[in-house]
């Protein structure tokens, strides 16, 4: 993984102070930006593999940074945000952020998210017809799902939902995003559909449906599909 550069955007010097050595220890090259403007120019000039972005910046709103970046870049973005700001997170995700980490966070958690986001981006580039989620194998052209080699029967809607989640593995998807893509724009707010279908998928695919590992709930935000 050596040589992969990570851009950290935060106006708090303290955050950079502890992130730099930890990122270096994990083999990343840390780039530092204290403002949104600085971040945008660094993405252009240094082409980092991933961006860690704090939403409260002195010169512009972190969400505006996402908006500008998404106009021309597919770089994965992991947002740093306060636990109590669900709306902000949802907005950031809807604007195209890949994942978020609540402040304060443990370094291990942040590293895991970075890995997942990077891997997901690579998988996306592959466009394989067969997707994998843990021990679940999804054969898109044949509409078949195998769990540990045994076929699992899914309704067309369940399959569609699962395929959509698997295609975006490692990324947090907001309720609205999933509903819009799978059920259509008219059903954007019918979260109850989503809860019912996710429950059914978990019952059919998870080893322990009470403690899901494949489809994980992000309370108040949406779902994250397991690594």
């Amino acid at each position, binding site marked *: 993984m050596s040589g992969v550069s990570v851009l950290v955007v935060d*106006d*708090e*010097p*303290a*955050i950079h*102070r*502890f*992130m*730099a*050595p*930890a990122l*270096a*220890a*994990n083999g990343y090259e840390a780039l530092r930006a204290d*403002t949104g403007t600085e971040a945008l120019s660094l993405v252009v000039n240094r082409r980092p593999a991933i961006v860690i972005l704090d939403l*409260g*910046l*002195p*010169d512009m709103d972190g969400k505006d940074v996402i908006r500008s970046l998404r106009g021309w870049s597919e770089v994965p973005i992991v947002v740093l945000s*306060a636990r*109590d700001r669900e709306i902000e997170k949802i907005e950031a995700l809807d604007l195209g952020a890949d994942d978020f980490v609540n*402040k*304060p*966070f*443990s*370094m*291990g*958690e*942040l*590293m895991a998210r970075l890995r997942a986001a990077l891997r997901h981006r690579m998988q996306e580039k592959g466009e394989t017809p067969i997707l994998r989620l843990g021990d679940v194998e999804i054969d898109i052209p044949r509409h078949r799902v195998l769990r540990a080699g045994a076929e699992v029967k899914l309704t067309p809607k369940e399959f569609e939902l699962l395929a959509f989640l698997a295609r975006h593995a490692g990324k947090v998807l907001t309720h609205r995003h999933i509903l819009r893509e799978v059920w259509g724009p008219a059903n954007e707010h019918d979260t109850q559909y989503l809860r019912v279908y996710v429950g059914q998928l978990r019952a059919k695919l998870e080893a322990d449906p009470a403690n899901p590992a494949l489809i994980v709930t992000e309370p108040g935000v949406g779902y994250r599909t397991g690594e």
Partner: protein
Amino acid sequence: MDPTRADPEALLAAAEREARGKLRIFLGAAPGVGKTYAMLSAARAAKAAGGDVVIGIVETHGRAETEALVAGIELLPRTNIPYRGRLVPEFDLEAALERHPGLLLVDEYAHSNVEGSRHPKRWQDVQELLAAGVDVWTTLNIQHLDSLNDVVQRITGVRVRETVPDMALKKADEIILVDLPSDELIKRLADGKVYVEDTATRAVQSFFKPSNLTALRELALRQVAARVDSDLVARMQGSAIQGPWAAGERLLVCVGPDMAAERVVREAKRLADLMDATWFAVTVERPGHVMATRDRHRLEAGMRLAENLGAEVRSLVASDVPAELLRFAGFENVTQIIIGKARRWSLRAFLRGSLADALVRAATGVAIHVVTADQPEPAGRGLPRLPQAGPLAGYVVAPLGVGAATLLGLMLTRVVALPNVSMLYLLAVLMPALLYGVWPAIIASTLSFLAYNFFFIDPVNTFTVARPHELLALLTFLIVAVAISALAGRSREQARLAAQRMRATRRLYEFTRKLSARPDSASVVEAAAIELHAALGSASVILTTQKGELAIAAAWPPEDRLDTASMTAANWAFDHGEPAGAGTGTLPSVPWFFRPLTGAKAGTPIGVVGIERTAGVPALDAESEGILGTLAEQTAAALVRTQLSAEVTQARTAAETERVRNILLASISHDFRTPLASILGAATSLIDYGVDIPAPARRDLLLQMRDEAENLDQMVRNLLSMTRLEAGALDLRRDWIDVVEIMNRACSAARRRGATQRFVVTAAPDLPLLRADPSLMDQALGNVVGNAVRYAGPQARIGLSATVIDGQLVIAVTDDGPGIAPDVLPHVFEKFVRAVRPGGDGGDGSGLGLAITKGIVEAHGGTVAARSPAPGQRTGTRIALRLPLEPAAPAETEETP
């Protein structure tokens, strides 16, 4: 009805009015008071404030000062309407609707459009504009108001042809009175500053007389006064003024002094409720007719009842009762009239038919309900009451006049043979009749009759009458005398009533204005008590409920207690909503007369007003009671208003508290989260990847954890200190401390936290020691330095100095940063006030630091001050802490003066 809740229908009406344009009328008493000028001045201000102001039509009449105001405002061209072979320029309604400005000025509301225009009247054009959502300002003279047309003609002798229906005035959202003293107006007229078509005409001359102008001003004032308080209350309740032309039924109930009054009112209320109708309670007073006290009480009770039940009450004055009722009904668009039929037999009813009969005969397009009394009333006094006797002088003048007439007659008959000497006696009767009223006139006519009989009728010098036709002549003469005196008396009475009403109106207007300026209920009741005292000439007291109990809120002359019996009477009046105390049926031995204060809409009283009376003496006279009633109503309305505004304030305070709490939560969560994130991030880095991190970086992570923990500790200390300061529980452990030492400590603490600025510490030589709490002073100065570090910029120079000025130790922290904005400067020592950082998000720091510094310094008996720019600099901030020095400094230091 709960007065504190907005009536949903009123809100709906308000919403409808929102969509409509707003109408503002500049109302004047006469041409030339400066309405157009006032309107244009206001319009210029509105335009300057960014409004989309357009002049639809304005008549400048060539006045230069007015024309100067027009310049610069967009002007709609007039349209030319062909009329009788020529083109008449008129206001262009089409163009105005097309242009659809934010605010349109349309002069002369009462103007009649030339034939061929869309509407016959300009006020109708305005209504259309309002309906289209255009705000309109217009001007109006009071004499153009329909309902006042007759009054104006009576006053001025000039018939005004262009009139505006009253509802067109009522629909105004705002009325602005443009007033000018009569003398000044006449002077303006003489100077040619007032435009009238032909200044020389007699009509104009008779119009612009001081007496006329005063009367017109009175009328205008009255119109505006009628709106003052009701407007305020209506606005605060979130309700619009009731639309006077609401669709559906409108009832009118005639209230008279008979026993059926209450029953009729209740019946009307029942009908109004059934039909969901607006209803009026009306009483018509005949000029010159003086009511017995008992009747007046009944009438007033009926009217009060009607008002409490939600009627709009009106008191009209007219000789022809049915005609006046129907005029009012037509004017107010009344659809049904409810009237009581008294069973009392009266000569009047026998001769002329009852009021009900008269109404039925004359009414068109109105339904009439007649309500009968349950019980026949006991017969009244046998004789019809005569008007009140005049003053004593009349009884002296009457015989003198008759004597003079007799002498003159005797002298004249010596010279010439007069066919009818009685004419002289008519003069003798007429004079007291005109001047002193009916009783002196009757005495004069009786005396004249006797004198004429004695001196001039054969047989002369006896009271016997020889010829029957002479007797007839004498009787006719008596009747004529009485009739004339009655007539004269009536017109005098009418004038007196009018004057009295005008005085009362003026007084009421003043009072209402006074009350509406009072901000809280305490000052309202105080003003009311003083006004009552002034109006009625006796001590007054106002009681309101305080903590569920009736207690004195104000009294004049000032008084803070009432005896037990009086309190009982006051409570009784409050509980029953009826008068009590002296002159009433309840506790008449009490030396006070109490009357409940009832809010305009609320059914329950909000307090009691008391007037001091000698115990056992009859109640107030009708006039005083009327004044008391009116003042009490106004006071109640004003109280309701202040209560509403107090509630609004309370809600605002609650919202403010909530805001502060939210800021506290937000700042605490933000300020605590950053150091916590650093500590957790550094710690987990060491745990998970410690092996892969080089040793110097590992040490730096550990140092970071320590620094951030210290940061957290500082914040916790600040929060705790704030709490203790606010609770007044700060306990000072004073000790002798070296100020230079704490200044140095503050700098090194700031550097440890990553401050990059340059610190310069200076101190006066021989600086005395300070006796203060060392850890609190560290905190106080540390916060000021921290503030400078945060806001002055990374390259700033921060100076700390200590000097002694006027026996006080002054510690100043000066920076050369950008300084504090002038609007923030006065608030820097308040809690949760944070400046916006240069290029920052302003969301830094808890906003507590300087507030805590202030608290600590004040706890030591000192003061704090902030200046920006710092003295002697163009930018920067200087924060100075002044602390008192104790004279008993330790021996080793010399105190410097």
